């Protein structure tokens, strides 16, 4: 190969490598530190919403990963007795902390429900004198068994208002309390900010 061509190729490679380096450094500077804490979980990793492979692993709770602004999903495996899960989060313009909690597994919650269902039905009976107009569906416990959601299927003769209703109860100091009063066709996190959104969503999807 002629010498000028070799020089030209080497120069081009050198310059491109430097440009890539500058671009890489700029890219790194655009990333923000995100602290990820988790409990009852392992194998925690960060994904893009559509990405099949992890873009960052979180070796221990409190680890910091550097991410660009955008939407991400944390996926995790629950420890024994806890459910696997995922949690979406958004990185904005500043560093942030994302906390992940693995809740009880479905099997554990189902077992707990058999113990709690009588107390839950009693709470609904005491709260609503007309609860007899509805069949209370079995429903589900959520999180650590301290949230309960179900649907109420109308069985009366008001055909203009025979909608299925939804209700969430919360266990407070050993007693079940209606957290979304009154039960309604859908439950909104705007109306009930104290109720976890994932619980409201699950009940709205029942």
């Amino acid at each position: 190969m002629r010498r000028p061509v070799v020089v030209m190729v080497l120069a081009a490679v050198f310059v491109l490598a430097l440009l890539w380096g500058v671009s890489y450094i700029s890219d790194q500077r655009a990333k923000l530190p995100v602290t990820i804490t988790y409990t009852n979980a392992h194998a925690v990793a960060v994904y893009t919403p559509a990405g099949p492979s992890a873009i960052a692993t979180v070796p221990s709770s409190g680890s910091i990963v550097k991410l660009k602004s955008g939407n991400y999903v944390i996926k995790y495996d629950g420890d024994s007795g806890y459910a696997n899960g995922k949690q979406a989060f958004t990185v904005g313009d500043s560093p942030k902390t994302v906390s992940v909690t693995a809740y009880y597994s479905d099997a554990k919650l189902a077992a707990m429900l058999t113990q709690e269902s009588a107390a839950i039905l009693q709470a609904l009976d005491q709260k609503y004198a007309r609860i007899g107009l509805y069949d209370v569906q079995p429903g589900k416990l959520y999180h650590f068994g301290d949230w309960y959601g179900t649907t109420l299927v109308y069985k009366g003769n008001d055909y203009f208002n025979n909608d299925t209703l939804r209700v969430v109860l919360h266990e407070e100091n050993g007693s079940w309390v209606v957290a979304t009063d009154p039960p309604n066709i859908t439950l909104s996190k705007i109306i009930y900010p104290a109720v976890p959104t994932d619980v409201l969503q699950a009940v709205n999807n029942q």
Partner: protein
Amino acid sequence: MNTSQLRALAILVIVILGGVFVYSISQFIAHHGQSQLSLQIAPSSAQVTIDGKTYPANATVYVTKSKHVVHASLQNFTDEEQTIDLSNRASGTVSIALNPANAAGEQYLSDHPEYQLEREAVGGTDQGAQVALAATPLINKLPVDNINGPYSIDYGQSTLQKNGSVIIISNSSPDGRKNAIKWIRQQGFDPTTLEINYSDFSNPLLGTGSSQ
């Protein structure tokens, strides 16, 4: 191509790539440790300062990674000031649409329709509606009437959220309300995130209408 032509070509390529390299390095060094701040100010004839130093109204500038005060003013318009914290950010944008302070300002906008367009571009007109749309984007698709549903979906001012909207489902049967929720989901919205009022629904549990 002979040897001298090849040599000339090689030198030319090296000079061009070298120039790109030097420019990239100089940009990197010049802006190292700085943040990019984009200004979107309308009307663009406004006087704009960042921390007291004058800049063009629609410039992109590099500033230190710290808090900065952007001030915009124009005769017959109300002064506006915004503070942006770039301490931990690589870039940020300040959008300011100055509002007329008097009849002369209104006249100025009438005489300069291009400035009115600028204000709309940075969200300066009907800002309440812009904020409401941002808070509840579903309202962009409303109202909707479906006689087969049957249902109507419209929106109103929320009493619970500042600048928020309440979605109102009316003219509906129980199946219509179910179909209305189905339609909302089909538009990509989660009913959980919406304040919905079922205006025709009288809750049998209570014997009264309800808002949700």
